[in-house]
Each structure stands twice: as structure tokens, then as C-alpha cells.
């Protein structure tokens, strides 16, 4: 499996945010609500990671509800690739 690094996932996340006319903060502790990153944005990011790796990323909702910061998003997707 072609696993993406945390930095590569961050680049993809920046693209998703930029596509909506915003800028992804450098700080991993940035609050997702403040940058308007919603669940469907997370879904879009996960699908971009899928496209890049060629592997489906399936997951349940409870894990998503714990995600509050940019770092949480990156950690979640990095970990999901290893499962």
C-alpha cells in the first residue's frame, strides 16, 4: 500500500481548504470549527487520500466526533492508513 505521510496528508488538507477560498493554518492545534472544516470536508479529504493511495478508507462516525483540531485530522487519517 502506498501510504501517505502526515505531511502529504496536510498538503491534501490544504488543497481542500484552499478550494473553499481559505488557508489552512500551520498550527496543528488550530480548531476545525474556526477554519470552517466540516464533516463533509473531512470526507473529501479522506477520498483524496484514497485516490492517492488506491485503498478505500472506511470508518465509523464515533471516531470523527472526537476530531477537533487540524492535528486530530492528520493523526486520524495517518492511523487509518495503517489499519
Amino acid at each position, binding site marked *: 500500500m502506498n501510504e501517505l505521510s502526515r505531511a502529504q496528508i496536510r498538503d491534501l488538507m490544504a488543497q481542500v481548504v484552499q478550494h473553499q477560498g481559505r488557508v489552512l493554518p500551520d498550527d496543528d492545534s488550530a480548531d476545525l470549527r474556526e477554519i470552517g472544516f466540516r*464533516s463533509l470536508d473531512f*470526507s473529501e479529504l*479522506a477520498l483524496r487520500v484514497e485516490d492517492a493511495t488506491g485503498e*478505500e*478508507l*472506511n*470508518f*465509523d*462516525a*464515533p471516531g470523527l466526533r472526537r476530531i477537533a483540531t487540524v492535528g486530530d485530522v492528520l493523526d486520524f487519517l495517518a492511523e487509518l492508513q495503517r489499519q
Partner: protein
Amino acid sequence: MSESALVPPSTMVLVSGGSRGLGLAIVTDLLDAGLTVAAFARTVTPELEKLAAEHPDRVHVGAVDVTDLSAAQGFVRAVEARFGPIDGLVNNAAVGQDSMHTHTATADIARIVETNLTAPLQLTRLVIRRMLGQGRRGRVVNVTSICAQRGFPGLVAYSATKGGMDAATRSLARELGGRMLVNAVAPGFFASEMSAVLGSTQLDQIVRRTPTGHLTEPAEVVPVVRMLLREHTNINGQVIVVDGAASI
């Protein structure tokens, strides 16, 4: 209307998914009402075992996966050999969902459809074939969900199966021409069990929108199930929502 045209109250009821939650509450309530009950679930819980021990002459329990049709057939035969013909069926067994459709594995979608839609249709077919073959009348109650009528994120496949069962309820009621009463009960979200699929924020929103001010409890659903199995109401092919008016 002649008395003979009425579908008599059920006396021997099969409940799928009767080991916990609403299913266990239905089994308990029907036993309290004096009925004979057969209940199966993937796992027979200590609570269901306890009921069987307390009512050895009126309860038959077994570990059956509702998707295993041959096991379900064997269970039905064993029940009928022990207690006589089944004249009531409660399709309660179901699996929940907690994932966006986009990120739900295809195998999980298939499993939800098989468990929540295909299996109850097969079990219903099995039971009503035996009722009709014996010239009996009977009643079927499908436990569906408010998800069949209103949209909730994270529950796409689950909602599709419950909507399918609502539709099957109407068609089956027509098809059976009054020889059997077929209805559905659609609870709102429970405070436990399936409600794990919604976050606390969503549950709080539902409570705020509910005129009765609280989420549905199993104890509020079981009297409706019992009524559909026992009372002469002429209710047939209907879906009765039990959600405190949250959805209207």
C-alpha cells in the same frame, strides 16, 4: 362484520432479536400478558435465559442468527413441536449503523441489508407460509424506525432497510387479504442502544424538538406492539410512529 372475519389475538408469538433492548422488553411484556413466546437472537443473554427459567412452560429461546434461514427454520419447527402453531411474529432483530455512506465498507452495507431487510422478509415468508398452510390467521409486527421517514446522517443503509420494511408492511397487508394483520411500529431514537449512532449534540437537538421532551423508551413502544398483536382495532398495513411527535 361477522366474528369469523376477525383476526384473533395472537397467543403464540415469535420475536426475533429478543435478547436485549426493545426485543427483550417485548418478550417480557408479552409474557406478562400471558402469551407464549419464542425468542431468538444471535446470543441468548442471561436476561433472556432468566425469563425462560421463570416461565418454562411458556418460553422457548435459542441462539439463532436471523440471517441463517435454515437455523431459523429449525427454530420455528422446534417451537411448533413444543407449543403448537405460531400465530404472531415480531420482526425486531436488526443491526445498526454509524458511518457516513461514503465511508461505509461495501461488505457492511451488504450485512445491514441482509440482516435488516432480507432476513425479516425471509422469516416472515417462513412464518406466514406455515400459518396459511394450516388455515390459520395471524399477526405480524415489524419494528422499523423513524429513520425510514426522516433523514439522519450516518444511517443511510439502515434507513433504507427500515423504509423497505415499511413498504413491505403495506404490500403484505394487501397481499394477505385480511387473513393476517401486518403492521409496523417505528420508534424514535432510544436513549440507549441504536442511539449510539448519533452524537450527544444530535440527540440533544432531537430532545429539544420533541414536544414530549424526552427520547423514546422501550417501555413506551411495547404497549403498541402488544396492541397490534392482541387488540381488535382494524389497524392493518400501517406504520405507527412512537417518537413523542419529534418528527412531525
